[in-house]
């Protein structure tokens, strides 16, 4: 029993943190919003060079063969900067799925290519237009197509960096890949949504703390007011009790049993609740500044809202936890129990 990250994992997280801190600043956000550019090419290049897109791929297809826990640490940092690019969905969800189905597919050979995924739990597909390939679902089977083989209709998200597409397609014009574990894709995506939620939440708190230290009203910094302190302290409590759930879910996900699925669902629920709570507190602490486009805290609220409802609604995830509660033993000796041992 050891609930600590190893040195390599800590280094990964620090690398991601530094890379994003340098390449995804408020100036980058604003420039990208103004120009409407889908990607910051320099940032994406840096991400690719650091190997993040290969992290979860098996070594046999040229990947790093690392684990969901390692990737979750990257996803948390991506949340901390509200990363515009679909790193998480492509490298965390779609590429590993494609690798499991068609390890030799050419879309996996270019580490800078992205793969989009249409999943039964989501109505739209992120960044489908720029993907080298789109994974599609029909009757439980997976198909693959390029963007020019399908019809894409852009849908506008409240999140300026979520580029959503409705995908209409004809199975006859796509490549059938056969049966696939859509649940595993959902679990991975939900886990990484949760990890991003931690980052979103912490950033929202950190922004509010900085503002409250500086902003003066009634002759003192607003951070001295108990109401401000308590808003942010409550948000931090939510983060502190979401993080270990996310970490445990990341460590457990490979078990693919009812407990692992429940823990992933728990992680997604509480991490995104923490993100919404923190973003709301942050907007309130920022006052009218928080309500203006100029102060970027709105990006964190919007991303949290979107991730909350995608990759399984709160109701879906709550029902998976209920299944674990009511079909498996519960109690203090069951925290780390497995389905095969207790069913």
């Amino acid at each position, binding site marked *: 029993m050891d609930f600590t990250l190893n040195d390599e994992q800590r280094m990964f997280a620090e690398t991601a943190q530094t890379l994003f801190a340098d390449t995804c600043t408020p100036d980058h956000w604003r420039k990208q919003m103004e120009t409407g550019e889908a990607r910051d090419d320099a940032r994406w290049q840096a991400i690719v060079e650091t190997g993040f897109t290969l992290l979860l791929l098996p070594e046999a297809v040229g990947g790093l063969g690392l684990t969901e826990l390692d990737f979750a640490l990257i996803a948390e940092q991506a949340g901390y900067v509200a990363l515009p690019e679909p790193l998480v969905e492509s490298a965390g969800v779609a590429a590993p799925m494609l690798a499991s189905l068609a390890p030799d597919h050419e879309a996996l050979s270019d580490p800078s290519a992205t793969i989009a995924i249409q999943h039964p*739990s*989501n*109505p*739209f597909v992120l960044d489908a237009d720029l993907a080298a390939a789109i994974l599609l679902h029909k009757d439980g089977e997976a198909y693959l197509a390029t963007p020019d083989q399908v019809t894409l209709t852009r*849908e*506008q*998200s*409240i*999140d*300026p960096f*979520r580029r*959503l597409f409705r995908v209409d397609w004809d199975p006859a014009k796509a490549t059938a890949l056969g049966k696939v574990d859509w649940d595993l894709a959902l679990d991975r995506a939900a886990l990484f949504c949760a990890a991003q939620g931690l980052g979103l939440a912490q950033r929202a708190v950190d922004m509010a703390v900085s503002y409250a230290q500086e902003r*003066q*009203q*009634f*002759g003192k910094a607003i951070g001295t*007011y108990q*109401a*401000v302190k308590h808003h942010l302290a409550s948000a931090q409590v939510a983060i502190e009790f979401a993080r270990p759930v996310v970490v445990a879910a990341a460590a457990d996900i490979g078990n693919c049993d009812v407990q692992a699925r429940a823990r992933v669902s728990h992680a997604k629920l509480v991490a995104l609740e923490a993100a919404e709570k923190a973003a*709301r507190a942050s*907007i*309130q602490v920022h*006052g*009218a500044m*928080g*309500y*203006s*486009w*100029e102060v970027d805290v*709105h990006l964190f*609220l*919007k991303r949290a*809202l*979107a991730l909350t*409802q*995608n990759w399984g*609604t*709160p*109701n879906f995830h*709550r029902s998976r936890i209920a299944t674990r509660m009511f079909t498996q033993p519960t109690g203090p000796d069951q925290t780390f129990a497995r389905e095969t041992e207790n069913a």
Partner: protein
Amino acid sequence: MDLTYTPEQQAFRAEVRAWLDVHVPSEPLEHFDATREGFEAHREWEKTLKSGDWGMVTWPKEYGGRGVDLIQWLIFEEEYYRAGAPGRVNQNGIFLLGPTLMEFGTHEQKVRFLPKMASGEEIWAQAWSEPMAGSDLAGVRSTAVLDGDEYVLNGHKIWSSRAVFADWAFGLFRAPGSERHQGMSLIFFPLDAPGVTVNAIKKINGHVGFAEIFLEDVRVPAFNRLGDEGQGWHICMATAGFERGLMLRSPARYQVAASKLADLWEQHKDAADPALEAEVVRAFMNAEAYALNIYQTASRLMAGAKIGPEASTNKIFWSELDIHLMETALAILGPKAELTQEAPDAYPYDWIDDYIFALAGPIYAGSNEIQRNIIAERMLGLPRK
């Protein structure tokens, strides 16, 4: 205690409804903060309202109003929201500056400003906040210096609603060297005066919602000062009372929203979390409670009572019910909640946009933290320090 409408009140409702049936535009107008066209379309609507004598229903007739009582006002608002009529671009005039002018203005000021406010000819922006004076309005730093019979205004106002396209603004300015609540005067200035620069500020939904105003040696006649020199804080507090109180947020707005939420629930309930029904019911209850509270307040005011610090409870209640209502809608919509629509004027069918709008509720017109302080100190009697 009689919770039925009189025949006169019923007739009044019928009259409002009949007029609105004919006059409310069939297509929603573009938002008044979005473009000059949208703003001018709303100005036209104000003129249409005025033509039917529905512009300033609560104002006395002598100032261009209809002189209705508060119950009639509530009925008017109910019908107005029910009809999906356009938002009021002239809100700052109707509910804030108008009443303040009637209370503190000279006869000449009333004659000069009120009729054009009532007709929509002049649309007003408020200019309360400054970069260092948000919740703490006594931190205002903009100055007014009397030079002959003119004031010279300098400073920087922010979070001014309507200021991008409006004609006039009102704000607090202080005598140089004065501090805190002393030495401030409430002064009107035209937004096209030399030395005035207005920059739009985008709200977090990406739409223009406020402006910042820079004033550089802007000259206005001393006539434009409301009340005595140095009386600005006192007048401002009275205005803030109007803002927090009965007038700003009509219960009808939330009752319409609660009905639409109920419709949304009926459309989506087969696919949504069944536990959300309790939230839909709660939204209805909140809207009803707010309406009943306002009817109670209206009855008391008509019986001679004055509005007091309990107005702060209104601010908290409507701002929180609004967020709860919109959150519930987003939860019902699930993964499609994040989709935006073209910015509409009619209220409400763009749930995500209304959610974003609702988030401003606990912030503006005195943050809810300030309101809770007021309730604790002035209503409950807890010590200030």
